[in-house]
């Protein structure tokens, strides 16, 4: 591998979590209606923010998190700053608990993620209810968060392999 190609690959590795997050947002903006829309689309960017806040915060700087959230707000038409704020708060909370999660079993990390998902749901529901002036039905949000929590183990393994084998050089 030439010097230039190596540099490009390095850049790609450093930017990979950010790019994945942006791709997760694109998925949220596509007309995905699997099983006639019964299964909601999981919020993959939340998984990405959670995962790299524990295992490699330097791979997902706060600016990337902000941009991922902002793109989601712009594309899905929600109030600007909502998902950006939720993802940033997620990163802050997770990073403060980082030393607890590092080296733990994946089951424990999964439990941690479900707690984070509950926290994010509460923020989202409160802000949206405040902004629309009525108490919104949280059912759709809870279903979407449930789907997100259910797919976490799969993405945890995939991201773990990616992070270990590709992003972090041995």
């Amino acid at each position, binding site marked *: 591998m030439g010097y230039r190609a190596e540099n490009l690959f390095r850049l790609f*590795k*450093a*930017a990979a979590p950010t790019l994945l997050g942006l791709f997760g947002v*694109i*998925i*949220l*903006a*596509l*007309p*995905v*209606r*699997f*099983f*006639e*829309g019964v299964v*909601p689309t999981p919020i993959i960017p939340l998984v990405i923010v959670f995962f790299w806040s524990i*295992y*490699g*915060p*330097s*791979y*997902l*700087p*706060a*600016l*990337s*998190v*902000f941009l991922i959230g902002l793109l989601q707000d*712009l*594309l*899905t*038409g*929600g*109030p*600007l*700053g909502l998902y*950006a*704020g939720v993802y*940033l708060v997620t*990163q*802050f909370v997770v*990073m403060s608990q980082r030393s607890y999660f*590092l*080296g733990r079993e994946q089951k424990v990390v999964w439990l941690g993620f479900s707690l984070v998902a509950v926290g994010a749901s509460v923020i*989202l529901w409160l*802000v*949206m209810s405040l902004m*629309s002036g*009525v108490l*919104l*039905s949280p059912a*759709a949000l809870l*279903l*979407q968060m449930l789907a997100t929590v259910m797919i976490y183990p799969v993405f945890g393994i995939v991201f*773990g392999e990616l*992070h*270990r084998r590709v992003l*972090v*050089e*041995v």
Partner: protein
Amino acid sequence: MEFLGQDRREGLGRKANSRFVLFLLIVVSVLLLLSSLYSAQASVFKKAREGVIDAASPVLELFSGPIAYFNDVTGSVSDYFNILEQNKALRQENAELRQWMDEALDLREVVAAYRGLQTYEAPPEAQPIDAYVIGEANDAFARSMIVNAGRTRNVESGQAVVDEKGLVGRIVDTGAHASRVLLLTDIQSRVPVYIEGADIEGILVGKTRDDPTISFTESSAPIELIPGQRVLTSGAGGVMPRGLPVGVVEGMVRDDIIVDLYTNYVRTRMVRIINYEFPAINADAADEPADSVDEPSPAEG
């Protein structure tokens, strides 16, 4: 997992994630949120949304094809189990529709005869713009879709969007080549409607659940409704044309009339944006209605 958690700083992630920047950006997000609370339609935000829709539309268009294929595959699994019932229902519906077709053909002749009269003046015709759904907000609270037609094809904010069944929503943001449709179920959606045969004018309000309600009604007399009555756009406010089918009355809960929409958002794939100009009736703009009446006639002939 021995390598997980080891920080190798290089490239984009050269510096450790700084707490200061994180805090700063949280503050920025909250400020954005507060400012969008007070000026949701601020031109800067609107421009940003429209720009992002435009920039993302090629990507969305690229992926929406395969996604539609997978939607069809997964969607049809449930269809296999009730294919006989569906077939029976379709036969019955077909028989009913044939009767309607006969009636419509008769009516067409009658209408043609009336149109032949000298005194008849054609109302301005709507100019339909066809588009595909390339994006959809998979969000619990924001309900919107992105379609692949924009300003270059005369799409403007406020225009009604219909699919083969009925009203889908209205345009809220328009990029050059893509636009956002606010669905009737969105919490921000307000569409003036009337109930056929009941003489009730009202506003259809989105509730984020599947069924929106008519919350405000003009008549103060107690409302008598028969479930199944048609709900149509009233054209009040002068944006959407009158008489677009919206849904049927499902029932009443307290003062709210629940409306069962004709359109099924899970299957909305092709839509038609209705570019409609209301006929001007004020006398000082006497020239304009003449123009707008003349315009559609070459298209007709």
